[in-house]
């Protein structure tokens, strides 16, 4: 199993480790609840070095990326980042990613660890006819996410070059073989940064941040944080079998832009599923649990569920079948044979503090 450059630090800190996307990753350091609260109220940091980084260079780099993605990348200014699904011709989702516009002819894609090979093969197979050069630098890059309302202050202390850039934009610190990139992005709903760079730089930054009492947080806390703000997770809310329109990601599909892979199929498709957000007064919903209506019909399944640290209630995202779902009926989640009432929720469960 692979390890990130920060692995020795995780061992020193006594983290609980588990396999994630082919890497041995920290799941929890001390206490999951405190890790979640550190990010919501102060500042926490995550090793997300398992994620993949692809670089696309050339006169047609932006045109190519815009053709690959369902969201509008050409409209974004240089130094901006765009979240988007990556779809096949039939509209099914290969992965979700963030595309960073480093220059008019230079793009970085940050992809999910478990999908690096699948994404890479797909992108390479589509490059014909485009003036682009592709490099997979996933092995060269380390990545940490520093998240929370005090993330800018903590980072500025450790790295004076950092500027107060807007949300979803980036700043390049050092342009070399492996450019150091600060991006104001993240997966927690809070203000925060993701810092991409060579292992030596990122390890140094991590150590400085540890000394200034930034709480190291594991992937367990990260999963709770992203669920509280209803960010989808590949393999749960989105997958190879469904389209973005079936996973609550309609806002990321821009039919108004010129052709992109999957456009024709998505325009014609009628979504089979809906993504619902559910809050339970009692009981904790988990992935795979049945969602049933008041007449006892099973209408779908929980795709992500947990206790929300902030709400102190069970929260879930669920995939329900449109054909079986009647929005006027009450819903329940079946937990070990017992039905627990689930209220539909509009918008995120928790309002993150990002700008």
């Amino acid at each position, binding site marked *: 199993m692979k390890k990130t450059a920060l692995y020795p630090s995780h061992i020193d800190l006594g983290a609980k480790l588990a396999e994630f996307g082919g890497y041995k990753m920290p799941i*929890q350091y001390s206490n*999951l*609840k405190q890790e979640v609260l550190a990010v919501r109220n102060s500042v926490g940091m995550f090793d997300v070095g398992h994620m993949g980084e692809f670089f696309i260079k050339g006169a047609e780099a932006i045109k190519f990326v815009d053709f690959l993605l369902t969201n509008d990348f050409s409209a974004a200014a240089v130094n901006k980042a765009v979240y988007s699904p990556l779809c096949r011709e039939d509209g099914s989702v290969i992965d979700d990613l963030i595309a960073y516009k480093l220059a008019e002819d230079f793009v970085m894609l940050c992809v999910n660890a478990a999908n690096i090979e699948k994404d890479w093969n797909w992108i390479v197979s589509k490059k014909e006819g485009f003036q682009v050069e592709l490099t997979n630098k996933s092995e060269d890059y380390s990545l940490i996410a520093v998240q929370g309302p005090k993330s800018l202050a903590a980072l500025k202390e450790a790295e004076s070059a950092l500027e107060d850039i807007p949300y979803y934009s980036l700043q390049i610190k050092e342009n070399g073989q492996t450019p150091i990139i600060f991006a104001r992005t993240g997966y927690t709903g809070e203000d925060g940064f993701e810092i991409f760079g060579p292992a030596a730089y990122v390890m140094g930054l991590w150590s400085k941040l540890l000394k200034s009492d930034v709480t190291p947080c594991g992937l*367990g806390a990260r*999963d709770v944080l992203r669920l509280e703000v209803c960010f989808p997770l590949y393999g749960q809310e989105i997958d190879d079998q469904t389209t973005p329109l079936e996973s609550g990601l309609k806002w990321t599909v821009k039919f108004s832009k010129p052709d992109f892979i999957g456009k024709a199929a998505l325009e014609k498709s009628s979504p089979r599923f809906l993504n619902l957000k559910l809050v339970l007064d009692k009981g*904790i919903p*988990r992935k795979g649990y049945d969602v049933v209506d008041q007449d006892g019909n099973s209408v779908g399944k929980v795709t992500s569920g*947990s*206790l929300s640290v902030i709400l102190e209630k069970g929260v879930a995202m669920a995939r329900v079948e449109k054909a079986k779902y009647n929005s006027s009926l009450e819903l329940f989640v079946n937990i*070990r044979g017992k039905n627990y009432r689930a209220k539909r929720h509009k918008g995120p469960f928790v309002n993150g503090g990002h700008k």
Partner: protein
Amino acid sequence: MSKIPENLLYTEEHEWISIEGDVATIGITDFAQSSLGDIVFVELPEIETAFDTGDSFGVVESIKSVSDLYTPLAGSVLEKNEEVEESPEKLNENAFGSWLVKLKMKDPSQVENLMDAKKYENFCANNS
């Protein structure tokens, strides 16, 4: 972590058992509560439910996980600890002092299959 009490018996599933006549009181060990993290939900069986050895008699949930509770002894439920169901954090605060269920044992000779404190301590040392 607190000391493993000498007067209790233990299972490989990190449960403790105290025996009085044909009644077994079952709880989870300090090792179990510590590996689970913050316990936020406990579900225990109804009185008189009968279980076979190895059956799941309930669950404890942390924020991120669900863990089954397995009975090492066959029997039926005499009592459950409703206080722990209402305040699951008691298991984190004092695992050895917070029992879960009392079972009337079907076959008290099954007690011989349980570990004593010394054996359990070794088991933990070899499996952590």
